[in-house]
């Protein structure tokens, strides 16, 4: 099987020993692998990498640990060890340029597996975003944990050369550097000048001094420059890979494998649904089966007969996802909005939006309802009611709201406590348990998932479902572990 999906110009050196191909633990994955591997190895490598990325996702979004913090790192490492992925836990812990056989094999697997997952994750925007986010976390963590001499080698290997600013220049701007850089002891650091768009993550957080279009960064912040390059390159490659999928997917077995891979993790994107929900039932559904983000939009709409753009989008797509038809949806919005405006205005300014959500206007895409990740990261401005209430409400406000809904005071306190710690999705799960008077501790990562779980529970299906799911995963893990045993003998 040939993995190469690259453009003609970047043909990799096929010859050469492993040490020439893989001199360093940390790779930028510029050149795709060209060797042939068995379908079995292909599958194993894919699943192992997926486990790794999944572990990162759990740490960040479900456990709510701060990315790159010590707890975060520890969680991932111990998770990888538990899953029997010793080589990934090693690569993750520290990056060096050792040359033992185990080092080289680990790098080879890292390299190939990364490219396999590109194929599985290039299919649509949602998947790409998830994949890029995880690979980026991985890359950053590994860069941060590079040993001193490895850093130098890394720069050399990747032809990265930057010149630091002179002492005079530094003295001139030292107050600004002190104000705007988030490192202690900047007096002893060398500073480099790069264009502001090379370090967007620092710009975004206002953690760098900017002047005349340049960002002044110490050596430590080069992780930003490189991860930005890494991200751009990866995004482009995914777009290219997507175009070439047809060629690769001539092998039926591969198609199944690659497609199944992402479904096994990200689950449904809720863009197409079979159920039909009449709008008359929304009021009652909103009480139990809507997560707080949607319940609050629903209430606001009933109260003010209006929602701003962000709210219409978030709620409209959710509604589509639970099975409200386009006709019903139009009727629903129309009935509310025309309480404060005339029909003409609604038809001209808002009906388009509703049809757009259903892929009937504009670019005619079938938009998927937003996931929690997306909603939590929304920008919420004055007058907006969308977003995730655990993230975008004052604590006192949240508390009042929950009390107002008649939730048990203990539950309210629990929810508020985890919210304060920034674990929004955990709070959401606790809210789920509270409104259903149950103790499930689901991992919530999509409002529509919240809805479906709630419906299952209400209709009495959940018990069966949970068992089924558990069994399925247990089996799979057993399988994966078997593979790992074989592999660990090589190490």
């Amino acid at each position, binding site marked *: 099987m040939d993995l190469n999906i690259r453009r003609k110009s970047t043909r990799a050196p096929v010859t050469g020993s492993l040490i020439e191909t893989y001199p360093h633990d940390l790779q930028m994955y510029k050149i795709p692998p060209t060797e042939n591997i068995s379908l079995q190895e292909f599958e194993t490598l894919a699943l192992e990498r997926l486990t790794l990325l999944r572990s990162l996702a759990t740490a960040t979004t479900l456990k709510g640990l701060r990315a790159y913090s010590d707890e975060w790192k520890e969680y991932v490492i111990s998770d990888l060890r538990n899953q029997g992925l010793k080589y990934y836990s090693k690569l993750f812990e520290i990056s060096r340029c050792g040359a033992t056989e185990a080092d080289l094999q680990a790098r080879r697997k890292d390299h190939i597996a990364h490219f396999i997952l590109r194929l599985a994750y290039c299919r649509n925007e949602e998947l790409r975003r998830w994949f890029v986010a995880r690979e980026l976390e991985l890359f950053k963590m590994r860069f941060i944990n590079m040993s001193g001499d490895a850093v130098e080698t890394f720069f050399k290997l990747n032809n990265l050369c930057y010149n630091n600013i002179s002492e005079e220049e530094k003295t001139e701007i030292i107050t*600004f550097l*002190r*104000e*705007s850089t*988030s490192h202690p002891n900047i007096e002893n650091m060398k500073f480099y000048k790069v*264009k*502001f*768009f090379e370090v*967007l*993550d620092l*710009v*975004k*957080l*206002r*953690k760098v*001094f*900017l*002047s*005349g*279009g*340049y960002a002044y960064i110490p050596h430590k912040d080069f992780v930003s420059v490189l991860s930005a390059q890494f991200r751009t390159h990866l995004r482009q490659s995914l777009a290219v890979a997507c175009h070439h999928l047809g060629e690769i997917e001539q092998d039926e077995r591969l198609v199944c494998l690659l497609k199944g891979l992402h479904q096994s993790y990200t689950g449904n994107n809720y863009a197409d649904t079979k159920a039909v929900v009449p709008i008359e039932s929304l009021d009652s559904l909103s009480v139990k089966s809507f997560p707080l983000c949607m319940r*609050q939009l629903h209430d*606001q709409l009933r109260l003010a007969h209006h929602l701003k*753009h*962000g709210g219409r989008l978030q709620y409209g797509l959710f509604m589509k996802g639970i099975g409200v038809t386009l006709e019903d949806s139009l009727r629903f919005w129309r009935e509310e909005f025309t309480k404060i405006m005339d029909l003409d205005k609604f038809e*001209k300014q808002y009906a388009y939006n509703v049809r757009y959500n259903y892929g009937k206007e504009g670019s005619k895409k079938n938009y998927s309802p937003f996931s929690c990740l997306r909603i939590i990261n929304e*920008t*919420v*401005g*004055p*007058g*907006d*009611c*969308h*977003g995730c*209430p655990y993230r*975008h*409400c*004052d604590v006192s*406000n*949240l508390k009042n709201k929950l009390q107002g809904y008649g939730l048990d005071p203990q539950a309210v306190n629990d929810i508020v406590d985890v919210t304060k710690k920034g674990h929004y999705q955990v709070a959401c799960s606790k809210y789920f348990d509270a409104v259903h008077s149950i103790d499930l501790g689901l991992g919530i990562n999509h409002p529509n998932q919240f809805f479906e779980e709630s419906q299952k529970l209400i209709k009495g299906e959940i018990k069966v479902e949970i068992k089924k799911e558990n069994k399925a995963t247990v089996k799979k893990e057993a399988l994966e572990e078997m593979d790992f045993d074989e592999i660990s003998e090589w190490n």
Partner: protein
Amino acid sequence: MVGQYDENLLSDMLPIYYTKFFPQNVFCRWLSCGSSPQPLANRELSFTLADDVYLRYLSISNQKELQTLFQKKCPHKLDIGAVYNTKPSIARHDSVVLARELVFDIDLTDYDEVRTCCQEAKVCQKCWKFMVVACEILDKALKDDFGFQSILWVFSGRRGIHCWVSDYEARTLDSPGRGAVADYLCLIMGGENQSKKVHLGSDNLHTSIRRALNIIDKYFEEILQDQEFFATADGLKGLLKLIPDEALRTQVEKKLEKLPESSLERWKHFVNVYEGYCRENGFAMRKIKYLVEEIKIQYCYPRLDVNVTKGFNHLLKSPFSIHPKTGKVSIVFKPNNARRMKLDEVPTIHSLLDDSAADSAQHQNNMKTSVKNFQEVVFSLEKSEAMRRKTDANISIDF
């Protein structure tokens, strides 16, 4: 004057306005430069016609075509979109957005939770001061921090201002880049459910925030007196909600209730109580280290509509178009003149066309000044474009 303005006459007046007053030549040059190296024809324009019919993906190759299009369609609203890889009217499906000015939109309705003089669509000279502050802060940041030079400031025609950055680096900035610039400049965050919208943490204040605060300080007391933020019971409650520390909040409440209603007085006392409290309770400092600054920012810092800035192909009202509801011209102004700008001296289509109108002469004059302001920005943009092309050529020769 606005009172005499009648929306129904617009269809008769607009053709004359577009021919006689709209600076077609400069406009085309500005857009050409801003589209380069793509031709002007790849730029999307969109029109809204008298009966609300909305035409997208229009484009022009030169001034003559613009004039013809104006006469044929007589747009009531004129918006500018992005630069595509082809003419936007053809092959819409595989067209790609290549460039677009970096734009900012600030609208006074987003100040409704702080301004007391007007609400919603209304504006007056008092709330215009928010725009003055916004313009000064942004202009400085765009120039000093990001190194941009071709910055055009436009009055939106009713209740806000727009800013267009045409520098090559700004036009070709990708979506994440725009997002980062927007986030860098956006300090007020949160919706209906969050009272406190500014959080500065407890580390050093970033250089750009310090600079913004210096600008706010020039206007703060004046705005405070204009708006009387804290004079009413509600206003006072609003202030108290921003104090996260309970003990301090109680102290402030006790103190301020007894005072006369003047917001300035109340503010000064608040600062006093705050400082005293900090002296006594060093330990509580972290959470409220920048409380005073946070409050100033919440009341006066620019409230950007970040979605407009982040979106690569958001359509935005063109400079020198007529606002269909007010009849006012979207004039270009100089940021250092914003302070002196009077809203009722902004030319309207009516006063421009009717020589006998009372303020006609003054409006004509202001229109001329505004076109001159526009020219200045376009000239300097043309110069830097020429330089850029020269350096680019040199670099490719070097290779």
